[in-house]
């Protein structure tokens, strides 16, 4: 497609996003404002992630795009095709083969390695937004490192329900300084961010914010000494590949109460089944 610049965005925009990305990496977990552009798809479909990907992507990159862990859902297919057409990059569904992974709401099950970059599509970058509606007041709390409000929210959950009732977008402390929304990944994925060998970049298009977690950076899910952070996962094993440790989706199969649990990460599931078939 010669009608567009490489990877769609013009060079001026890329420079602006790139400057924001470098500052975001220098201050892990801090939300850096950027001049989010109008993209050829609506807000809420990953415009932030797409602008980050467009600004980092090179001709030799291999791109993987997932939506809730799946390579074959509408959002993933559209974004993958968008970059295949505007940048001509190679695409893959294999986590291990990808150099850039754009994701909506999951971290792949396959362990990430050094040199890989994960780009997250973020709807609400401000972890305090549900507790403090004013953006200015929330920024001041970040400046002061004053996160008492979030601790009170967790405490109230425990006092009322006996556990913290956040199952996704579970708030984390990055490098012991900034409270960060890890985007709506399940809390199950939070530990994968801690001291991960990969670089994690977060883009929020509508909210115009970029933030980052460099490799090997401490990312701790908020908790209390007597109520430590605990992983939750459906107790079933995957109906297709039998995995007992992966994150599962519940699929309703009929109107008689029938349901099955399968891996949310389609690449992980398919690879396990291929391996089983080969043996």
């Amino acid at each position, binding site marked *: 497609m010669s009608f567009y610049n490489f990877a769609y965005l013009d060079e001026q925009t890329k*420079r602006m996003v*790139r400057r924001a990305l*470098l500052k975001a990496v220098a201050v892990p977990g801090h939300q850096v404002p950027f001049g989010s552009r109008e993209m050829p798809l609506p807000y809420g479909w990953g415009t932030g992630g797409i602008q980050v990907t467009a600004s980092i992507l*090179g001709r030799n990159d291999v791109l993987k795009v997932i939506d809730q862990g799946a390579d074959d859902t509408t959002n993933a297919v559209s974004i993958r095709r968008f970059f295949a057409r505007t940048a001509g990059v190679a695409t893959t569904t294999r986590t291990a083969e990808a150099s850039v992974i754009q994701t909506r709401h999951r971290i792949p099950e396959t362990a990430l390695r050094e040199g890989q970059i994960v780009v997250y599509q973020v709807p609400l970058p401000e972890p305090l937004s549900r507790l403090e509606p004013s953006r200015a007041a929330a920024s001041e709390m970040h400046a002061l490192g004053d996160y008492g409000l979030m601790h009170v929210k967790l405490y109230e959950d425990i006092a009322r329900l006996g556990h913290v009732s956040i199952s996704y977008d579970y708030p984390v402390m990055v490098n012991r300084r900034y409270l960060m929304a890890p985007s709506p990944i399940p809390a199950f994925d939070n530990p994968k961010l801690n001291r991960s060998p990969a*670089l994690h970049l977060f883009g929020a298009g509508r909210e115009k914010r970029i933030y980052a977690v460099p*490799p*090997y*950076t401490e990312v701790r899910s908020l908790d209390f000494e007597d109520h430590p952070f605990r992983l939750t996962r459906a107790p079933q094993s995957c109906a297709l590949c039998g995995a007992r440790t992966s994150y599962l989706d519940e699929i309703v199969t009929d109107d008689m109460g029938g349901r099955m649990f399968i891996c949310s990460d389609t690449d992980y599931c398919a690879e396990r089944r291929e391996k089983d078939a080969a043996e």
Partner: protein
Amino acid sequence: MTGLDLPGFADPVGDAQTTFRALLDAMARPGTLHEVADLAAPPPLGAASASVLLTLVDGETSLWLDASCMAARAWLVFHCGAVLTDDPATAAFAVSIGMPPLGIFCAGNDVAPEESATLVVQVEELGTGPAYRFSGPGLRLPSLLQVAGLPEDFPVQWTANHALYPRGIDLVLCAGARFCCLPRSVQIEMG
């Protein structure tokens, strides 16, 4: 000789992208050495500092040059469209041969630490000279890097800069075609 007879990137889109990815990796893994493609840089700039500036600086950013870099001024204005400033405290980017005192640049504020300056500093050599030990986000284990041409009190200056965290200056050290990044989050000791 103003350097204006020298070209910018041969492939503006591709070269800016490869330089940026090296910068991103360098910033994410402080103290790791990276190399840029060959570029006919205007003296006294080396290929690395010229490439970094072509990649990041444009009409939206203010640029401060130390007196020894003035020979490259016309080239930077033409190829980057940079807006030059005389006041280091207002510069988003600063270029200098040898380390300037860090205190003269903007370190951002607590609400917007990203407004701090990024310094592109040319040192004598990377990979030889006194060893420095880096630790912090981005590094699995503390790493060592030899840098020739930093002032003796650099670790002290840096400790003061690091103490401002999350405010603080970010450094890009360049020598010839090589460069490395030192974000404010990194701790530095003599190795």
